[in-house]
């Protein structure tokens, strides 16, 4: 009986110790399956093992458009190390997105977003908003508004180093 009590106390101590001293766990990115603008549907969780930059944008959003050439470069630069950029268009339809993606030589998949996915990500009530996900699919950074390319470059390089 005494051993049982001691065992329970030890287990409790270990659990509380783990919670207190363990690293802060980033929230898991809400999973989704959405239609791609130029391809089959895409499921976010299928990119586990990659570092993912999830970019909520729209063709008519000026700061979004300014960022896209940088994203194209980042995708090229870090593809081999495991970066996958995914664009989530918040345009009302895919019609303007297709020619835009060709004009800007977008080299990463683009899905059509909706209000539901916006709410799942805490409300996408301004553009652009970018989420950086680690290889486990956890959100490590959220950038609201246009963000300098150097910031993304540094953050992505750091995440890619972690296996």
């Amino acid at each position, binding site marked *: 009986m005494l051993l049982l009590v001691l065992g329970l106390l030890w287990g409790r101590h270990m659990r509380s110790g783990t919670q207190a001293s363990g690293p802060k766990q980033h929230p898991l990115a809400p999973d989704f399956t959405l239609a791609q603008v130029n391809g089959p549907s895409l499921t976010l969780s299928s990119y586990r093992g990659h570092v993912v930059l999830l970019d909520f944008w*729209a063709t*008519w*959003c*000026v*700061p*979004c*458009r*300014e960022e*896209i*050439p940088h994203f*194209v*470069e980042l995708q090229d630069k870090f593809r081999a190390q495991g970066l996958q950029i995914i664009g989530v268009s*918040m*345009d*009302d339809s895919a019609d*303007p997105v297709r020619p835009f993606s060709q*004009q*800007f*030589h977008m080299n990463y998949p683009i899905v059509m*977003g*909706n*209000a539901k996915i*916006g*709410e799942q990500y805490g*409300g*996408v*009530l*301004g*553009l652009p908003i970018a989420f950086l996900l680690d290889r486990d699919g956890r959100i490590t950074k959220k950038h*609201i*508004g*246009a963000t300098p390319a150097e910031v993304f470059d540094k953050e992505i390089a750091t995440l890619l180093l972690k296996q």
Partner: protein
Amino acid sequence: MKIRLLLTKSVLAVAAAFLMVVQVAGQATAIPASRQVTPEDLVKLLQSSPEQKPLMIQVGSHVLYTQAHIPGSEYIGPASTEAGLQQLRKRVAMLRRTQLIVLYCGCCPWSHCPNVEPADNALHKMGFRNVKILYIAENFGNDWVNKGYPTAKGD
């Protein structure tokens, strides 16, 4: 290979520069301060005379509108597109030119919003002289929803 990469970068840079130049003409910064209304003042206006509410029109994205909008406001569509402008003209065509209209978007920071200025310009050309533009510094989430102002969801 290097030449191809350089060419691609050049094309992207030219495309981006062209789009930026095109956008300058339609920026919200062209709207004088006297015709802007702050979120705080709009809320006061709505609370002080609920029976005389202005016609409030959201001229941004439907996806953003569905997530959050000002109660009673109507969705028209991005006024940076011809389709959005046509919808706007159609909606107000029969109204008195003295009607108070509040336009808002909140998709992007004020200096980058491509929608409110073309909408304002279209109404001005139609003879409307009582138009206010909601000044949203960063975006609708930060400057309206997160401040606890009245918000509705859905279509």
